[in-house]
């Protein structure tokens, strides 16, 4: 029954990403250090369907936030293509890009840093309305702001207050109201709940789900917390050192992860239960320096099942089951064992 509901919500492909990449180069030669280039995102290809939530997970420095910003063209890509609703984003002029931005919005991680402290709540939320000419008169805008505040669970009487008067959770609601004010079809949410307390986190996750139900937009949900993602995502993409190493439906990724990195990541999450303990796969060492990515499969330096071939040959992202792709020479769907 839940499946039917999900099917109904999710439509056709809305965003297509093909071979998207970004190289940040360091030009400054300070103290004679060699110029280095960091491949933050490398050859990302995937789609996001209408009304769907695709989660992008990975550890710090894996390029997930950069990928999210590339999709909105907040950073210019080094190569590759993003198509939204059939329109190529990369070819758009500045003017066309501006009107395209009404379709795509962003929710930020830090509810303290993402709201201007000197502007009232109504000014913050009505700015996009003004920019995109959605509500012309100031009366219309105030009505719209009141409506939006109600939709995100805040009282319209808060309109003339300032961000400092609100808690982290309330500020995140304000950020969400601002994002949905222009009726976007696609929202990139970059770690939207990771700065919040546990009890408030649940409120925001539920709110984001409710809004998607009623408005039908798609989310790219960037997060490092696999338990939160388990709740909100329809599909999950796992990134490691700039590359997508596994992508598939939530049921596949959590039930049958096939990349050894995904398996380690899932097994490393400490369960809030002292009695069921997963057999933890402890990875050796740290994530390598992104300026100096290992040859072959970039995970081979930490991989518990790496063979000689992994050091020289980079495994392509290949299908292991319908709709479930994994970039591993020895990909094997494997439920996480519980001891």
């Amino acid at each position: 029954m839940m499946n039917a509901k999900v099917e109904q919500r999710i439509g056709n492909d809305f965003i297509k990403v093909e071979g998207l990449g970004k190289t940040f180069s360091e030009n400054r030669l300070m103290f004679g250090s060699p110029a280095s280039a960091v491949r933050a995102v490398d050859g990302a290809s995937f789609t996001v369907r209408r009304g769907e939530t695709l989660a992008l997970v990975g550890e710090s420095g894996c390029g997930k936030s950069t990928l999210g910003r590339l999709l909105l063209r907040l950073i210019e890509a080094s190569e590759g293509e993003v198509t939204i609703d059939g329109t190529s984003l990369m070819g758009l002029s500045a003017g066309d890009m501006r009107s395209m931005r009404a379709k795509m919005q962003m929710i930020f991680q830090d509810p303290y840093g993402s709201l201007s402290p000197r502007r009232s709540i109504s000014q913050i939320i009505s700015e996009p309305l003004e920019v995109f000419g959605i509500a012309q008169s100031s009366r219309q805008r105030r009505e719209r702001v009141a409506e939006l505040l109600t939709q995100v669970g805040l009282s319209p009487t808060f309109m003339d207050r300032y961000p400092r008067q609100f808690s982290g959770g309330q500020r995140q609601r304000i950020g969400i109201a601002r994002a949905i004010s222009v009726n976007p079809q696609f929202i990139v949410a970059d770690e939207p709940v990771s700065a919040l307390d546990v009890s408030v986190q649940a409120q925001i996750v539920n709110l984001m789900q409710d809004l998607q139900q009623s408005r039908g937009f798609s989310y790219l949900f960037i997060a490092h917390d696999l338990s939160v993602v388990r709740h909100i995502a329809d599909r999950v993409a796992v990134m490691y050192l700039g590359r997508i190493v596994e992508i598939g439906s939530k049921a596949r990724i959590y039930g049958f992860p096939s990349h050894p990195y995904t398996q380690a990541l899932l097994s490393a999450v400490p369960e809030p239960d002292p009695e069921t303990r997963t057999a933890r796969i402890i990875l050796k060492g740290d994530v390598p320096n992104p300026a100096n990515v290992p040859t072959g499969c970039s995970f081979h330096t930490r991989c518990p099942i790496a063979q000689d071939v992994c050091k020289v040959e980079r495994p392509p992202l290949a299908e292991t089951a319908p709709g479930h792709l994994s970039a591993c020479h020895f990909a094997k769907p494997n439920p996480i064992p519980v001891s």
Partner: protein
Amino acid sequence: MTETLVLDPAQQSSTATKPLLKVEGLSVEFGPKASPIRVVNQVSFEVNPGGSVGIVGESGSGKSITSLAVMGLIPSPPGRIVEGRVEFEGVNLLEMQKSRLPDIRGRDIAMIFQEPMSSLNPVMTIGDQIGEAIKLHEKMSREQRRERIIELLKLVGIPNPEGRLGAYPHQFSGGMRQRVMIAMAVACNPKLLIADEPTTALDVTIQAQVLELMHKIRRTLNTAVLLISHDLGVIADVCERVIVMYAGRVVEDADVKSIFRNPSHPYTRGLLQSIPRLKDERSRLYQIPGSVPLAGTIKMGCPFFARCPDRIGKCAEEMPPMFTVSRSQRSACWVTAGAASEANGGATA
């Protein structure tokens, strides 16, 4: 659940082992004396030798201030300990001469913090920093000290320790820095290790490594651990006992199994229900309404009153004491205490 309800909040069954650390009625205030803000209110708990106790709570619950108070590290002014006792091996640290505190701090009680970068000296080598901790508390020759530092780095799993003695903190990753911090903390075989959110700044695969290391430290050195965390998963992994704090107060104190299987306080229950888990099929998360109150804003009654689904009239007026729910579980709630009391035929021994 056949325990009789004991209405005396201070009574805890006397156990054979004497606690290593005993905190009693600890209160900490900040701000001007005329209008103080109480951030820790009447907190009591115990840590047994070799035991592991977790303090869990959301931001503003007072969990970090409690741990700083134990270490005598409350910045004063503006903060001050206004009442209570902090007994370490039977000696009240709060009444101890200030000049004697460093003998205990760093040797018998050590602490690690959330942010390993800001807790390490950036212009001092790793070897010198660990050496300093040893030099302060133990008489050793330079050669012996070097041996000890290498041994410690090995213990915390730093590869090629001989070669890393001359390295600086910036040459280490976050996980490696936290290992160095742990090496410094356990340099003098402390009896108690206080860890304030030790893995919060780390990635999940690195967190798994550090948690594994904490288990190893406990096993090999028999160090007692007081772990402060907001992450119930980390708490469940490391701790035998759990203290739940809310708005400066302890609201529940129980063995880890009871906390997760049979939580008694409505806040603990709400917290457990609101966390997403890797293995659950709920389509919606339970949410506790409202938000955590600002420190010091609740002057009367139960601090959780405004958000509590089970509240009754009495909760608004009177702060519930810690009721004994079972042999190893106590909770500060009028409603659960009342229900337990009724189940026991109104017996209030």
